[in-house]
C-alpha cells in the first residue's frame, strides 16, 4: 500500500517538474517564466520529498525530508522575489516595448 502511494507521488512530482520546465521554455516573458519555475518546480520537489518521507520508515530520515520541504517552501518565494526585483529594475528591451504598446493601446480610446 505504501509503495503504491509513494510511486504515485513520484510520478506526480515528475509530471509537475515537466510542466515547470515546459513553462520556462515556452512562456514569453521573464516574469511568466518565473511563475512557472517557482511554483511548479517547488511543488514537484515537495511531492517527491513527501514520497521519500513516507517511503523510509525511519523518524530521522522523515525529519530530514520534512526539513528539506520546509526549507524549499521558505526559500522559493525569497529567491523569486530577488530575481523579480532585479528584473523589474533592469527591464529587458522586449518588456519595455510591450509596456509601450499597452500604454498606446490604453491611450487610444481616450483620444
Amino acid at each position: 500500500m505504501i509503495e503504491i502511494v509513494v510511486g504515485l507521488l513520484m510520478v506526480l512530482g515528475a509530471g509537475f517538474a515537466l510542466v515547470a520546465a515546459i513553462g520556462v521554455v515556452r512562456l514569453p516573458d521573464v516574469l511568466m517564466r518565473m511563475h512557472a519555475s517557482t511554483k511548479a518546480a517547488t511543488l514537484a520537489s515537495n511531492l517527491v520529498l513527501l514520497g521519500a518521507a513516507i517511503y523510509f520508515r525511519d523518524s530521522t530520515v522523515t525529519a530530514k525530508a520534512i526539513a528539506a520541504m520546509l526549507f524549499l517552501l521558505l526559500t522559493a518565494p525569497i529567491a523569486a522575489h530577488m530575481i523579480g526585483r532585479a528584473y523589474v529594475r533592469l527591464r529587458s528591451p522586449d518588456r519595455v516595448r510591450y509596456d509601450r504598446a499597452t500604454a498606446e493601446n490604453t491611450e487610444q480610446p481616450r483620444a
Partner: protein
Amino acid sequence: MTPEVFLAVCVRVALAGVLLAIAIGFLRLAKGPSLADRVVALDLMAVLIVAFSTVYSILVADPTFLDVVLVLALIGFLATAALARYAERRVLENGADETKLERMDD
C-alpha cells in the same frame, strides 16, 4: 503487478521525467536571451536536481542522498540570491544611463 514492481516502475518513470525536465530547463539556460532568464533557468535546475536526488535515494533505497538534498537546496538558494544581487548591482554601477538600464543582455 505487486506493489514493489509498481514502485520500481514509478521510480524509473519519475527519474526519466525529472531528467527530461532538467534537460528542457537547460535549453532556456543556453538560449537566454537575458541574464534574468538564465538566473530563472538555473534556479529551476537547482530545484529539479533536488527532486532528482530524492528520487535516486528511493531508487537505490539509501537515505544518505537526503543529506545531499538538504545541501543542494541551501546552495541553490544561495546561488540564486547571489546571482540576483549581482544582476542588480551591475545596473547600479552602470549609472543612470537609460539605454544601459533598459538592456539586460550579456
